[in-house]
């Protein structure tokens, strides 16, 4: 007998978008789990999402409340979430208060009542909220053995009755060691709410999950009117980017620039356009998007520094009609609310939008704005975050056009200020040059990964029709310094 027929552990959808990926597929059926964390971090909401996602009339969920948030208030608040289905109340989802039982009969009474209810209803899901209050009453002095015995009996009972169980408790991180409930539990999920400067970031960690591979580490999550949404820290890192040599070229919307790029931007590339303030980076990005719209390619613009209507209005001043595209659904201008974003949230929002619209082109305007939109705790990892985001987005085939403002310098010619050049396939550099008492502008293609491109440094102008690229400034040398000189032979 060489082949081992391993038992198949069914996985139940968590009901929380993004969490199943973190769990390695979902919550294991019949598992005995603990959701821990400080008050207000989303434990009850997470349990409700699971309950409303999985409970049926045949295998209902029993939601036991004990000396914690009164059930009436719980119902009052939880019904505000989109996942809450009133039709399931008292049929598929039943709330039972155990406060009096605990006060009158202690742990033994609680165990008896849970047993009675589970057997009577054929419950498939059991939640005890808050489990901490059940134990706190007894968890002192020589009663510790009784507590341990209670937890083990409860786990045994609920597993035997084929119930997937969640015990919810307000625990601090310091209490992680030597807790009998944590030892018995199959799954231990910790929710955190961290405050850094003025921003609040929610994170969750799968500290323990028997029988399946979960994604380790801290994952951010957000609570909205739809409930929790989790963002795996490895979002976008799975899969690989395949880039063939004969990829289609996407027009930038400026014929001369396309020519410099040997036909345009290779589809699926990440392009960085860097330059000083006022150089026309955003305009070039807008022309890129508008060109796609003309070719029937839906696009997305992620803006951080101005609101969508302002962005569309500015485009219209150059004769680029984005508003019509927004109205007909071929263009989304996403304004990501600043200051407390996690990279994962932003990535998820963009990936969702790309998939929903079938978008081919994405503009991120600008990377500096993106960095500022992140919660302070995430800014330290900006480069790593950017890498994940670009990898994830180009991995689904979209072409990214990011703008980056860099401080103009007359001794250096930097391509970017974040040392992120390696993250991008292509770089276009714009800069100011001083010529004959005028501040003029030049553009050059610095890099196109795996592709030939023009080495020309060309002058350009911003006109009412957008960016117009002129000829090379052949009479000058040292253009990249910003202070060129007339070539000797011209003199």
């Amino acid at each position, binding site marked *: 007998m060489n082949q081992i027929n391993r038992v198949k552990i069914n996985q139940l959808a968590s009901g929380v978008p993004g969490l199943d990926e973190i769990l390695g597929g979902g919550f294991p059926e019949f598992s005995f789990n603990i959701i821990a964390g400080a008050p207000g971090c989303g434990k009850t909401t997470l349990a409700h999402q699971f309950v409303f996602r999985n409970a049926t009339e045949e295998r209902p969920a029993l939601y036991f409340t004990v000396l914690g948030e009164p059930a*009436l208030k719980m*119902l009052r608040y939880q*019904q505000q979430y989109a996942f809450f289905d*009133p039709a399931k109340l008292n049929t598929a989802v039943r*709330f*039972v*208060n155990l406060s*009096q039982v605990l006060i009158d009969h202690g742990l033994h009474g609680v165990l008896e009542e849970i047993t009675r209810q589970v057997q009577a209803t054929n419950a498939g899901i059991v939640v005890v909220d808050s489990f901490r209050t059940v134990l706190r009453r007894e968890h002192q002095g020589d009663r510790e053995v009784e507590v341990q015995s209670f937890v083990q009996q409860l786990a045994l009972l609920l597993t035997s009755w084929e119930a997937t169980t969640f015990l919810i408790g307000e625990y601090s991180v310091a209490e992680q060691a030597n807790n009998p409930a944590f030892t018995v539990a199959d799954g231990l999920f910790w929710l955190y709410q961290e405050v850094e400067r003025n921003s609040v970031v929610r994170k969750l960690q799968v500290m323990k999950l028997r029988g399946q591979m979960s994604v380790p580490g801290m994952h951010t999550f957000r609570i909205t009117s739809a409930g929790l949404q989790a963002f795996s820290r490895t979002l976008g890192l799975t899969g690989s980017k395949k880039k063939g040599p004969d990829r289609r070229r996407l027009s930038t919307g400026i014929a001369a620039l396309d020519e410099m790029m040997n036909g345009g931007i290779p589809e699926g590339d990440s392009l960085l356009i860097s330059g000083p303030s006022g150089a026309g980076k955003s305009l070039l990005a807008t022309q890129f998007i508008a060109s796609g719209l003309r070719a029937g390619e839906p696009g997305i613009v992620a803006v951080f520094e101005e609101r969508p209507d302002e962005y569309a209005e500015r485009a219209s001043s150059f004769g680029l009609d984005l508003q019509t595209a927004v109205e007909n659904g071929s263009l989304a201008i996403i304004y990501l609310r600043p200051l407390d974003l996690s990279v994962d949230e932003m990535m998820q929002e963009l990936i969702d939008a790309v998939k929903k619209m079938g978008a081919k082109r994405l503009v991120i305007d600008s990377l500096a704005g993106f960095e500022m939109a992140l919660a302070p705790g995430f800014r330290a990892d900006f480069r790593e975050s950017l890498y994940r985001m670009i990898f994830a987005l180009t991995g689904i085939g979209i072409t990214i056009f990011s703008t980056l403002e860099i401080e103009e310098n007359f001794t250096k010619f930097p391509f970017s200020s974040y040392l992120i050049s390696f993250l991008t396939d292509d770089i276009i550099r714009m800069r100011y040059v001083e010529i004959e008492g005028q501040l003029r502008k030049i553009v050059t293609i610095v890099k196109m990964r795996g592709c030939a491109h023009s080495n020309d440094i060309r002058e350009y102008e911003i006109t009412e029709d957008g960016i117009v690229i002129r000829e090379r400034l052949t009479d000058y040398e040292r253009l990249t310094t910003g202070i060129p000189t007339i070539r000797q032979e011209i003199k």
Partner: protein
Amino acid sequence: MNGIGVAAETRELAERLVMFEAVSKHALEDDADATCRVCEKLRRPLVTLTGNAGFSSLLSRALILAQREAPALGTVQVQADGSMHGLQEAGAAATQILVTYLLSLLITFIGDTLTMRLIDDIWPDLRRRTVSPLEKEAK
């Protein structure tokens, strides 16, 4: 509900519950019996949901509010387990007002939909069974 008053629909619902209880028994009983039964039927699932203490406090609040409108409820006392003393003596009209305020509090806390879910669970035939004006008059 903010203490100023109770919605007409809630009064109507309380009246329907009492009528339904009275008619479904086919008994020549006083309305006070029917209203007591309504209170008791509401008590059981609400105690399951909120515990004895939760239901008692809800009922006590409803009683205080109802007493303004029905002074006869002044002698009614709420027990720790959510049962009541002196309800029978208060009379049918006063008791119905107490039911009205209890329903109104529930609606305030958990909304119309969930309150009606609870009512439907206790009186599954209520929506189907409309009490006719004649039955109402006969009572």
